[in-house]
């Protein structure tokens, strides 16, 4: 069964405490993996697209990596404003897309 699983469901960190969020997937014919940030009451905001295993992308305190089975979103020295729900999505078979349920991240000051 094609699916995308994000872990953990929720994560509480102290400000400055680095960690990683995981997105594992089981699909055939990966076309791209997407990371989004979603704040309460808002639509998802695009962060990264990764296309092939070994690819990495960075933006400020965030770094996304991709393997053949999973992706990690590394957060380095997070700040309270990084608190949000982080969504992972996988496109496959050209016109199919599956979203994970997200990881709710809370950074304590």
């Amino acid at each position, binding site marked *: 069964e094609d699916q995308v699983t994000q872990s953990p469901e929720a994560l509480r960190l102290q400000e400055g405490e680095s960690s990683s969020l995981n997105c594992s997937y089981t699909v055939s014919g990966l076309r791209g993996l997407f990371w989004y940030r979603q704040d309460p009451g808002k*639509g*998802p905001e695009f962060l990264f697209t990764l296309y092939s295993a070994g690819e990495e992308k960075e933006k400020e305190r965030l770094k996304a990596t991709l393997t053949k089975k999973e992706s990690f979103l590394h957060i380095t020295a997070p700040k309270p404003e990084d608190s949000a729900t982080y969504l992972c999505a996988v*496109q496959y078979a050209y016109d199919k897309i599956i979203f994970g349920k997200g990881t709710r991240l809370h950074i304590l000051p």
Partner: protein
Amino acid sequence: SAVISQKPSRDICQRGTSLTIQCQVDSQVTMMFWYRQQPGQSLTLIATANQGSEATYESGFVIDKFPISRPNLTFSTLTVSNMSPEDSSIYLCSVGGEQGQFFQETQYFGPGTRLLVL
């Protein structure tokens, strides 16, 4: 980037009624997408709407329940018909990247419409 607005932002409706949600984009786009985000669940694609053609619905979603219009390259509507409490959800509109390739570009999302059906 694309700026997307949705109307209404939220609504409370009675079962058996219908609600039409509008999505407006500040630039011309080829493909527009409608999603549903139920509490505690992941975003689920309802349908893809291209201008000048019938919308393409994902498994589990049918045109009679979720009719979609796409009259031009900047506007689309989604109607939730004959609503029941199970339709309570956030409905999101999104557009693909500038080249319009299916999902292989940046996707931009609207702020969502929060629907509660009593």
